[in-house]
C-alpha cells in the first residue's frame, strides 16, 4: 500500500504562530471595534457612520490579516499576489463605475428603469428602523 507523506513541517524560521502573539487580546480588540462600528450609526451623523462602519472594517480586516493570517511575516511573493488581485479590483471599479454611476454621457443616455416597489413592513428588522 502506498502512503503519501508530506514532510511539510515548518522549519523554525518558517513558524507562523509566534509565541509572542496574544490572540485572545487581538480578538478582544476586534470585538471592541465591532461595538464601535455598531454604536457609531446610532449618533445619526452620516460622516460618523461612514468612518465607524467602513474605517473600522478596514482596521478589523488589517488586524485579522496581520495577526491571524500572519501576513506580516509572510513571504514577499504572497504580498505581490495580493497586491495584484487588489489592483485588478481597482481596475474593474475604474472601468465599470462610470457606466454604472453616470446617467448620461457625451453620446448616450440611460433610459429610465421601471423599479419594483419592494414591500415595506415596519415590524421587521429591529436594528434597521
Amino acid at each position, binding site marked *: *500500500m*502506498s*502512503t*503519501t*507523506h*508530506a514532510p*511539510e*513541517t*515548518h522549519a523554525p524560521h*518558517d*513558524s*507562523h*504562530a509566534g509565541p509572542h502573539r496574544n*490572540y*485572545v487580546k487581538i*480578538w478582544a480588540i*476586534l*470585538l471592541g471595534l*465591532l461595538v464601535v*462600528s*455598531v454604536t457609531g*450609526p446610532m449618533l445619526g451623523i452620516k460622516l460618523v457612520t*461612514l468612518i465607524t*462602519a*467602513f474605517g473600522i*472594517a478596514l482596521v*478589523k*480586516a488589517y488586524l*485579522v*490579516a496581520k*495577526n*491571524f*493570517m500572519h501576513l506580516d511575516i*509572510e*513571504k514577499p*511573493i*504572497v504580498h505581490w*499576489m*495580493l497586491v*495584484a*488581485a*487588489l489592483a*485588478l*479590483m481597482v481596475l*474593474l*471599479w475604474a472601468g*465599470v*463605475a462610470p457606466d*454604472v*454611476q453616470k*446617467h448620461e454621457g457625451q453620446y448616450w443616455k440611460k433610459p429610465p428603469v421601471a*423599479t*419594483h416597489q*419592494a*414591500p*415595506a*413592513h415596519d415590524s421587521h*428588522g429591529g*436594528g*434597521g428602523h
Partner: protein
Amino acid sequence: MSDVKTIATQRSAMNIPTGRLAVWWVLVSEIVIFGGILASYTMHRMAHADWAEQAAHTNMWIGAFNTFVLLTSSLFAVLAHQAAEKGNGKKASRLLWMTIGGGAVFLTVKSFEWTGEIRHGFTIQSSGFWSYYYTAAGVHAFHVIAGMCLMAWVAGTAAKNQELHRVENVGIYWHFVDIVWIFLFPLLYIAK
C-alpha cells in the same frame, strides 16, 4: 522498494510550503470574485440613493451577532494553528471543531434571518438591493460551508497528529472568509 511516495512540498524559488502557496492562490482568485461583487454593489449603491430605503430593512443586530460569531471562530482557528505548531494535534483538532461550530451557528442564524426576510416579501427579485444582498451573502455562506467541510477533514487527520501543516492552511482560508464578512457587514447592515 519504498512504500513512501515523496511529493513536492516546498517551492525552492519562493521558500514557501506548496500547500500554503496554493491556499494563497485560491484566496487571490477569491479576492477577484468577492472584490467584483463588493465593488459592483458599492458603485450601484452610490448610483441609486433609493437602495438605502431597502437596506433599512436588514437587521443590524443579527449582522453584528454573526460578526461576533465569525470573529470568535477565527480566534479558535488561529489557536488551532498555534496548537498544531506545538505538535498538539488533538488540541488543534478540538479547536478546529469549535471553529466549525462557529460556522454552524453563523449559518443557523443566517437561515432564520433569510426566512424572516423572505416571509416579509424581501426576495432576491424584490429589487436591485435584495438581489445583491442574497447573492453576496449567499456566495459568502457557500464559502463558510466549504470551509467547514475542509476543516472537518483536516480535524480528522490532525486528531491523529498527521499533516498538521494543513491546520494553518485551512485557517488562512477561514480568516479570509471572516474578512469578507467584515466588509459585507457594514455594506449590507450598517450603511442605510
